[in-house]
């Protein structure tokens, strides 16, 4: 009963998308999940964390959910989807000497507030959702973003959004793709692409 009252008060006063901050390095990820971290006084934090979600709990739940991602085998893809994933894999092989794997997948929502369109796994895999693979444009958007995470992870040991390393990696990869496309290197794959 008291826990329910505390949770209700928290929602009313702080907000229903607020979690307790335990580590400010997680702020970016929390924001990414549609929430915001709020610092609370150390003296009451331990008691509050028993009933209010912390940033770590939110992320842990999200990661557990994302673990349920289901890869869709190529043979189950429609022709257009297959065209787009093949293009993605060829681009990936051009960009990296040790390329990550690229899959089409059904990716669960990262939280109750955001959908997941693309995902990078630090094991070295890029996942593109069915929604994004439908069109060449959204496929390439996703690919650039997720490949940049791979590059960022290889260099800096982190895969994090809204950072200088990710921004730079995205810029480099997008520039490389524009060069490949402009030079006609991918023309043989583009006939069936739906932008």
């Amino acid at each position, binding site marked *: 009963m008291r826990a329910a009252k505390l949770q209700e008060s928290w929602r009313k006063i702080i907000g229903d998308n607020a979690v307790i901050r335990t580590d400010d390095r997680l702020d970016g*990820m929390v924001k*990414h999940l549609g929430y915001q971290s709020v610092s609370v006084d150390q003296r009451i934090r331990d008691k509050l964390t028993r009933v209010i979600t912390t940033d*770590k709990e939110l992320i*842990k739940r*999200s*990661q557990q959910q*994302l*673990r349920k*991602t289901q890869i869709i085998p190529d043979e189950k893809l429609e022709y257009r989807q297959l065209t787009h994933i093949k293009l993605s894999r060829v681009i990936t092989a051009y960009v990296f*000497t*040790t390329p990550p794997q690229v899959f089409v997948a059904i*990716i669960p929502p*990262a939280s109750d507030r*955001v*959908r*997941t*369109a*693309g*995902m*990078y*796994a*630090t*094991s*070295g895999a890029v996942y593109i959702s069915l*929604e*994004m693979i439908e069109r*060449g*444009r*959204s496929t*390439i*958007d*996703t690919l*650039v*973003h*997720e490949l940049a*995470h791979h590059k960022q*992870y*290889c*260099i800096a*040991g*982190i*895969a*994090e*959004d809204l950072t200088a390393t990710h*921004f730079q990696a*995205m*810029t480099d990869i*997008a*520039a490389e*793709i*524009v060069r490949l*496309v*402009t030079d*006609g290197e*991918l*023309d*043989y794959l*583009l*006939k069936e692409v739906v*932008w």
Partner: protein
Amino acid sequence: MINQAIVTIRDKQWSVSVASTYSELTKGLGGMASIPAGTGMLFILSEQRSITVTTTPMLFPIDIIFIADGLVIDVLSNVTPGYLVTEQTPCDMFLEVNTGEAEGIESGDAVGIYTIHTGADADSISPVVSFAGLMILGTFMVNMGKTMATAMLKKPKEKPVLYGPRGERLLQTKTEIEFQPDSPEFLAYTIEDIGYRDKLDNAFGQAMARAKGLK
């Protein structure tokens, strides 16, 4: 001065050398051809922090156990020579042992450390402690043959090889965030943000027209 210790995790024990000074921390096990089974090196840091360990000067593969506040926070198995290993989670010590010896140890396991004072303080070791030390060493000797045979027969695990900006091999430890998810809105926003929306649209538009024979 502490330069020896007994480290216990679960049912495993190691008799280890302790590295705590700058020169000891940087030298580590580098240059050594091998170490006996059941032994290793415990690196004690001056403060809790994330740490990068190099195995470049090493001559044999090792397992590395990262420790913070008396608990295992991460275990890396079969790290071969020539790697840079970065532990993202701050730790205050880490243990290097022969490869295969950290098998079964997991994050959250408690770490028991029994330090042995030597040098100027050597005389202060009580006979009881010395006897206990001998007993533990005896246990090590019994297990040594088994451990060595297991290590020799064990096939090394395959690891993904990543390369850093200077061509060095990188090996990253697990972080709390294994999956980095992105929403459709955020993906589109970041392409705009780097200034490549029009460049990508134009490049693909022209190339697709060319590929379809429209241009």
